């Protein structure tokens, strides 16, 4: 019976999410991004914009060369890794799903579902999984479409790129745990969305702080070790939201190939103006960028599980 009930809850969460305009906004944006990418042709013969109407003779990106592949990889890393996975896609997905839990808890709605022979944790998890499955579809649509465009129009076939789909869902799940918790507490979609953004900032800040403190120290500046240790501790406890986009970048292939080109990685270029010991800065960046997937994702999922358990406990104990 539980399988039938869970299926019903998940399907309902899907229906609700599909009802929201933001799903169609997201789908429209995905198509626009794919069209924009498709309008750029990159081949060994040259690069052109607007479906061949504007050839760029001064630009030479040959997909068959390591340098050309590295540039394309860097573009995709920026577009998919940093912007889609790291920011915009997550925001849109939270907007689309922030109402999934609160809508179930609305007065008059919650009474009916709680009267059914299903446990509260199962109800909660059903909605949570439903939101996750919905985002999986969104991510698959975006990543597969851009993967095909990159392959067909830029001659850049990189199957590991498809791993961005689960990576996106994993990162979303870190953040959505907060949305679910705040949804149970406030029973309001807008409030849970805003509080989620605040929580995201709170887990993001120690990561940025730690990375920059490490870099600053590596180039010889004096930093109180307690600050670095504190930031590292918070970074370790909180979900590592910065590392998923980095992992995505590595999978896309940009990191390795940009090293081939000898160019500085993300963040390091910003420090060039300091004219300090760049070698140490590279080493610090490499140390920070050296993501251990199991540790990073494992500790983040552990934190997510704790937040979800708190939300579930709150939901199970609460009077409505």
């Amino acid at each position, binding site marked *: 019976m539980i399988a039938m009930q869970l299926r019903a809850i998940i399907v309902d969460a899907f229906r609700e999410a599909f009802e929201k305009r933001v799903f169609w906004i997201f789908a429209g944006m995905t198509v626009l991004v794919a069209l924009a990418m498709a309008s750029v042709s990159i081949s060994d013969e040259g690069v052109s914009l607007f479906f061949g109407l504007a050839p760029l003779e001064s630009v030479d990106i040959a997909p068959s060369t390591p340098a050309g592949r590295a540039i394309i990889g860097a573009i995709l890393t920026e577009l998919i890794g940093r912007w889609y996975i790291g920011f915009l896609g997550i925001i849109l997905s939270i907007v689309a799903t922030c109402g999934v839990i609160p809508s179930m808890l609305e007065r008059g709605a919650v009474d009916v579902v709680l009267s059914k*022979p299903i446990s509260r944790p199962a109800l909660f998890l059903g909605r949570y999984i439903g939101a996750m499955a919905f985002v999986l579809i969104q991510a698959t649509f975006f990543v597969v479409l851009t993967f095909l465009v990159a392959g067909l129009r830029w001659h850049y076939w990189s199957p590991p790129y498809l791993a961005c789909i689960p990576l996106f869902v994993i990162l979303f799940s870190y953040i959505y745990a907060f949305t679910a918790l705040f949804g149970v507490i406030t029973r309001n979609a807008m409030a849970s969305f805003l509080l989620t953004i605040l929580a995201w900032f709170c887990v993001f800040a120690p990561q940025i702080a730690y990375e920059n403190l490490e870099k600053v120290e590596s180039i010889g500046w004096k930093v109180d070790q307690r600050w670095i240790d504190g930031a590292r501790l918070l970074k370790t406890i909180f979900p590592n939201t910065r590392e998923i986009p980095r992992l995505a970048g590595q999978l896309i292939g940009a990191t390795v190939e940009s090293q081939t080109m000898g160019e500085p990685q993300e963040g390091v270029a910003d420090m060039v103006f300091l004219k300090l010991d760049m070698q140490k800065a590279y080493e610090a960046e490499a140390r920070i960028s050296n993501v251990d997937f199991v540790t990073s994702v494992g500790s983040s999922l552990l934190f997510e599980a704790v937040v979800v358990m708190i939300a579930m406990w709150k939901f199970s104990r609460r009077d409505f």
Partner: protein
Amino acid sequence: MAAVASHSDFAVDLSDVTKTYANGVKALDQLSVRARPGEIFGLLGPNGAGKSTLVKIMMTVIRADRLAGTVLGRPIGDREAKRRIGYLPEAHRFPEYLRGRQLLDYYAALAGVSRIDRRRRAGALLERVGMAEWANTRIDKYSKGMLQRLGIAQALMNDPQLVVLDEPTDGLDPMGRRDVRLLLQELREEGRAVFINSHLLGELELVCDRVIIIQKGRVVREGRLRDMMDDSPEYEVAIVGDASGVVETLGRLGASVIGNRVRIPTIDIGVVNKVIDVLRNAGIAIESLRPKRISLEEIFVEATGGGPVAPMARLTGAGADPKGASR
């Protein structure tokens, strides 16, 4: 319908139900309630009396601080019992993106009804509540009365042995109310227990077998409705003329004059005849004489001590609606 697998003869058999909200409002205070299979049970009380709290406790929406007893022979919250309970909450809010048939299917799936049964019952119930032609319309297009009909169908999708309805005729037109009454009577004839919470005393009077009146979380009156209504039988005489001159004489016989009516609170026919003699001797014409049963409203007012001022006073009193108090 299968027989109630129960350790108790009652569909609802609860005692010592106590609930105090976080803000200190005591909604229920050692309340006891019993409803039998095959009867329609009315739950009455002024605003803030604790009616909704009791229903929500039965439906596990709210947890009691303390209670003993069973629903359908099992402890409250037992999943097997919940499978056999249908519930329509007051001011329900259904997902607006669903269509009528989808909504029935969704809630029945949550109730553990198989796909085949869901399909079969949805069609039959939509027909039964007069919503068949709206089955595939999104419910955000429904009127309040249509939503109420769909809500009742929803409560019956799992073929329940106990049907709990909170204000079931809310939003319905007179025809809809009559349909609901007939439906409730059918449910009773099928051997189901029907538990109704409503403010519409006239509606309840027409269908209920038993009622319980609660106030400030305690039972103030309960029993068979017919017994209650026959409990204080009286005669009422409609008169034409001024009876002010015989008020004192009538008072000595226990009768009272209210406008152009004389109330005789007894079934002693000798006393009734004496009252008639007094009236006729005073030259007052008698238009009609009839035995008068006490109405549910009068029972309610008497039980809750509600005069013309008291109901408003209650709105601001300790028994005020505790909605939100749980948060």
